[in-house]
């Protein structure tokens, strides 16, 4: 089994092409099936444009928050371990085990009008559910561990000698963080940020529940695609899908480069 047989290679290629390749190509085919003019018109669909804008707002709010939290939590877990940080280490991975629908449900249970904090929040004039904050919270929830999962193992692997050396050279903690720590984990961060971005843009189930899915108001791009599809407006749905597919191709490229760089870094590392 030193080198797999040609038959195995072909089987694998066939499987991956059928399962992953065909759907991706099909999205492009469907979106272009009515010609350029129709595509151009569909791109200017008012509801979809509003949805794109909302998704962009969610990305701008949720991604930086999670990146900030992910890096901070990783540093705490690896560099200052304590009993509490161990608890954090476990909690941080829990979102991976929860169905997006259940995420939506539990956020509603906690933060909707009749939920735990609903009355407190509404007294304060805060509207979390069925508005932007709810969508942001749901997006943050589902993408919570994506940065730290990449950063934690790398931080462990590099160790703290570089940071300590920088300290003996007179550098203050902030300087050490920006000139040493962040530089060493840059590609792992890029990887995690890209995964977070993809997940935030692509989240469907959790956002479906917490947003209320009202067109032009609380409908993200994924919800807009789903709605178009259910309203027998499949073509418009595929135009939205095309945009997301383009984003995902971009995401794939960044992920590919980041993983390559991380592997090379590991290869370059010395005993």
């Amino acid at each position, binding site marked *: 089994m030193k080198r797999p047989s040609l038959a195995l290679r072909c089987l694998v290629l066939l499987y991956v092409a059928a399962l992953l390749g065909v759907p991706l190509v099909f999205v492009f085919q469907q979106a272009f099936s009515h010609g350029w003019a129709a595509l151009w018109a569909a791109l200017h669909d008012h509801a979809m444009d509003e949805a794109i804008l909302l998704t962009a707002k969610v990305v701008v709010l949720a991604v930086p928050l999670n990146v900030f939290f992910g890096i901070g*939590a990783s540093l705490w877990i690896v560099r200052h371990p304590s009993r509490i940080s161990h608890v954090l280490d476990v909690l941080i991975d829990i979102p991976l085990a929860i169905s997006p629908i259940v995420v939506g449900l539990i956020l509603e249970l906690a933060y909707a009008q009749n939920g735990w904090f609903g009355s407190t929040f509404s007294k304060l004039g805060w509207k979390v559910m069925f508005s932007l904050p709810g969508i942001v919270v749901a997006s943050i929830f589902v993408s*919570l561990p994506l940065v730290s999962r990449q950063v934690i193992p790398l931080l462990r692997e590099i160790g703290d000698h570089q940071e300590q050396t920088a300290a003996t050279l007179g550098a203050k903690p902030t300087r050490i963080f920006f000139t040493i720590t962040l530089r060493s984990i840059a590609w792992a961060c890029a990887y995690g940020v890209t995964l977070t971005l993809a997940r935030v843009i*692509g989240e469907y189930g959790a956002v479906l529940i917490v947003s209320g899915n009202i067109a032009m108001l609380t409908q993200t791009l994924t919800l807009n695609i*789903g709605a178009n599809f259910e309203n027998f407006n499949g073509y418009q749905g595929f135009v939205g899908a095309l945009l997301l*597919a383009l984003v995902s191709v971009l995401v794939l490229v960044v992920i590919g480069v980041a993983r390559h760089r991380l592997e090379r870094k590991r290869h370059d590392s010395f005993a």
Partner: protein
Amino acid sequence: MAKGVALGYISLLVLIPLAALLTNAFNHGLGAFWSAATGTESLDALRLTVTCSLLAAIFNAVAGTATAFVLVRDNFWGKAMLNTIIDLPFALPTVVAGVTFYTLYGPLSPFHVNITGSWVGITVAIMFVTLPFSVRSVQPVLESLSLDAEAAASTLGASPFHVFRTITLPAILPALLTGTGLAFARALGEYGSVVFISNNLPYRSEVASSYVYSLVSSGQVSSAASVAFVLLSCALVVLIASNVIARRLARRRG
């Protein structure tokens, strides 16, 4: 201070909502929880979800291992492309996959294949979503595996299949198990890619997350919380069990 912010963040996001789930699942007593979780529709949905997830996870354990093998040991034009596209399910929104599968293999299928409203369609959608888990867990282990042991076994006259079964498989088994466990747990909660192709026919093709959604939509929040609790427990048990077994297997190998 920073630590307080981190703890507050995770409490508001994860801990408090989870506590809300627990109290809502059980606030009408154990009896109400039990009847909500084991009603016919709930049981059918859970059974279908577990069956399809298990099928997809097992199938992908095999297909994923084969893919990892080709990626690590084979060499051909386009291999980098194959390696890149494996992550597509992480990058492509599930709803896009959902509507695409529905159009490809639904009533209007260009291939004249209709697998909507059946376990087949659900399983295919889950296979799409979970493929990278098994590939990416096995791949690094295979890369670090020395070929010496395999070569030694071959010189002793072992057939390629025998070498794989006795040398390679035991080495990758812990990672494969962890990856399959992750895939299985993810599959149990999958919604976006499944909901279109499944048609959501109660008792027939409704997965657990769909059922929870329909309960939420019709305002039956406590019942939704009960089923959600069962679903979440299943996923956690799968994750913990696969991790524990994998660790034990790895330790036995020393």
